[in-house]
């Protein structure tokens, strides 16, 4: 049962990618491409680890995790960079990306070869949570005609938020307890549960119809414009 659950959660990564490919016409030019690659990359990494295929290509799982921290954050940061309109927040994303990249590289150099990158992963989670909150805050400030939950990106960001808040404590404690078999069980269970949840929420977002959410003052003709036109 547990094995089925593990496989189900890992293979669930491919569901949003498949939906995205099938509904590509509805989601073009919206920055979701990056998250498509993120999901696909996450799927490949998990596939390598769960089947032990990483040994064939001579990479240990810790290195794959470290690589995922940097590349995964690159894609998520790029998604937020493309979708956030505030210049200040965009700059913040660039700065956080550089900081994380430098710190993750430094951590890789100074840490033992077979250790989990707890601190870079936790920092990555914090940066993603902050970016998601800033994105959502920006969205509720915008004048809209549609409810926010009818927009695909809201669900996509919510999925990232759920996954990274859910696994935040897991990443923090992973470095110290990764060798502990009890922790190992917990790690896999919690991570896979949130992975599944993330992919379900992500898929809901991708299944939503493309709707224009722009508040258009043009549809609302004022009295002045009427008078200017007719008098």
């Amino acid at each position, binding site marked *: 049962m547990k094995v089925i659950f593990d496989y189900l959660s890992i293979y669930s990564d491919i569901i949003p990618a498949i939906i995205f490919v099938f509904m590509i016409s509805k989601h073009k030019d919206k920055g979701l491409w990056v998250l498509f690659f993120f999901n696909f990359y996450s799927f490949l990494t998990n596939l390598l680890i769960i089947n032990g295929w990483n040994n064939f290509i001579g990479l240990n799982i810790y290195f794959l995790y470290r690589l995922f921290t940097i590349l995964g954050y690159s894609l998520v940061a790029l998604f937020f960079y493309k979708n956030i309109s505030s210049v200040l927040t965009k700059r913040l994303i660039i700065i956080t990306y550089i900081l994380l990249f430098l710190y993750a590289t430094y951590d890789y150099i100074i840490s033992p070869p077979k250790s989990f990158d707890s601190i870079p992963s936790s920092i990555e989670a914090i940066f993603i949570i902050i970016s998601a909150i800033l994105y959502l805050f920006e969205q509720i400030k915008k004048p809209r005609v549609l409810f926010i939950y009818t927009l695909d990106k809201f669900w996509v960001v919510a999925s990232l938020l759920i996954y990274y808040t859910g*696994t*935040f404590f897991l990443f923090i404690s992973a470095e110290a307890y990764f060798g502990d078999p009890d*922790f190992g069980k917990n790690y896999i*269970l919690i991570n896979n549960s949130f992975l599944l949840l993330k992919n379900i929420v992500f898929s809901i977002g991708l299944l939503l119809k493309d709707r224009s959410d722009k508040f258009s003052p043009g549809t609302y003709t004022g009295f002045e414009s009427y008078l200017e036109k007719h008098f």
Partner: protein
Amino acid sequence: MIILQVNSPGTPVSLVLFFGTIGMLVLTIGLIVFIIFHQRKVIRYQMQLQHMEQEQQKVLLNASIRLQEEERQRIAADLHDDAGPLLATARLYLNENLVNLDKTTQLQSIYNAKQIIDDTIQLIRNISHSLMPPTLKNFGLESAVNDLFQKISGSGSMNASCRFHDYRERLHADQELIIFRVIQELVNNILKHSNASFIHLTQNLSGNKLYIRLHHDGRGITQADFDKLNKSSVNVGLGLKNIQSRLKLLHGRIYFEKDISQTYYKVTIEIPRLEEEPVAPQI
């Protein structure tokens, strides 16, 4: 539930992990729910505001259209009831010339027809002047308002006076016409409803804004009454709605208040002096 089954109860790290993860998840779900509800509230409020504004504009538009119709009916009635019979009578006199060949009678009927045609010309001139006062076009707002107030004073029904303190530069013709119409409407309301014994108008310039103040000692309205009449969808306060819609064109404002002494009612019109070309209304 599944997490609880896997966690061994004695392990502190599992507890920290469990409560930490649950706490974070609750916070996230709370945040998402808050965003959804907050945004729903904001959208509903925006829609309500937009609906109210649309209703207000509909009321103003209806008032404007109704007033236009009333003005047309008044002109039609003036032409039909006054000019029509006069011209018909003149025609009768001229017709008599064809029947009656007596020279003296002919001269008398031509004279009568001429008198009637003169009256008709005067009548049409009055109608035309009421539509567009020539003084306003030729000499500006100050002269037109002076003219209007002299006529009111001359009728003996009320003491009317006006004073323009700072009107060296004339406003654009369209602006002057709109302001004049607003003053006309206000004066008309005072004459009809206030039972006042005097009206006094003053004009001032402060910064980039032109102020016109009307005082009278009759029955008047306050800002609250004005807002109430303006919002009502029934056909009361049509003139006031018309004032509001005219002032909107000039981005102007109007304030109704009672004097501190509680003796006079005061109406203040505030109009920004526009640098750019204003709209060209054909009111």
